[in-house]
């Protein structure tokens, strides 16, 4: 865990510095120059921050699915705590991805919200996981809540990859990687990135993923303590 902490701090610090400080020039000659991407210009730097945040939200939902599954197999409430904590983190990063994406959209596409397929799908995801937390708060007993929310998080987590990776590729849209966009047909939404941008981008993905693991760990430890206390008090 200590390694994860330091590595995530190092990666994210590197990405903030490299992502902002490396100059953009029309004809890059060295590794310390990014090309100017027509239509994006300086805004291309948002890729280093906006995309990893969106990626972490998927990670949170998939972890919630996995721990929900483990809960159903073992009936160990610890997995329920892990499941709800990662869903909460996924939700937070999902909101951040929506807000940052919406600001970027204002300057690239002219409006905060365009109902682009990816915007629509993240909106539906927010609704799905909003319902998840509503469901949890409506149930009183620990076991019933854990069981129902594990089932829900599995169902909801199964839809997440579809909404994030598949649906925005089937229909045409504004994001790179949409149908008809020949430039960006790679896994996560990205452009034809030059190698140095790609390195910064993937270090960002790694850094934010590790940050997620760290935050999840602290959140789960707090939840465990709270649970033990409430058991002692009763």
């Amino acid at each position: 865990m200590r390694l994860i902490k330091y590595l995530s701090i190092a990666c994210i610090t590197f990405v903030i510095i490299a992502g902002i400080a490396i100059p953009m020039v029309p004809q890059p000659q060295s590794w310390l120059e990014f090309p100017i991407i027509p239509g994006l210009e300086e805004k291309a730097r948002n890729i280093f921050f906006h995309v990893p945040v969106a990626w972490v939200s998927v990670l949170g939902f998939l972890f919630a699915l996995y721990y929900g599954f483990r809960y159903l197999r073992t009936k160990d409430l610890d997995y329920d705590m892990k499941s709800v904590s990662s869903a909460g983190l996924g939700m937070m990063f999902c909101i951040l991805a929506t807000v940052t994406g919406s600001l970027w959209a204002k300057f690239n596409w002219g409006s905060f919200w365009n109902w682009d397929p990816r915007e629509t799908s993240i909106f539906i995801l927010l609704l799905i996981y909003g319902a998840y937390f509503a469901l949890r708060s409506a149930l009183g007993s620990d076991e019933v809540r854990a069981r129902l929310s594990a089932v829900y998080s599995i169902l909801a987590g199964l839809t997440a990859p579809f909404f994030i990776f598949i649906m925005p590729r089937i229909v045409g849209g504004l994001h790179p990687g949409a149908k008809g966009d020949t430039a960006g047909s790679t896994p996560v939404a990205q452009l034809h990135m030059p190698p140095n941008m790609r390195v910064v981008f993937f270090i960002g993905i790694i850094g934010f993923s590790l940050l997620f693991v760290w935050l999840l760990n602290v959140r789960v430890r707090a939840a465990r303590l709270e649970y033990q206390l409430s058991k002692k008090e009763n």
Partner: protein
Amino acid sequence: MYEFLNQNQLYIVLVITMLIWSGIIWYLVRLDQKVGQIEKRLKKDE
């Protein structure tokens, strides 16, 4: 504001990183409160 950001697009990146940063801070503050409550309850038990 819109004009300024449109002219100086690097500041859009700044706003976006700050939004993400504020999200993480908000999460940490909430977690801090939670741990504080646990500490309080522990003290009561003693």
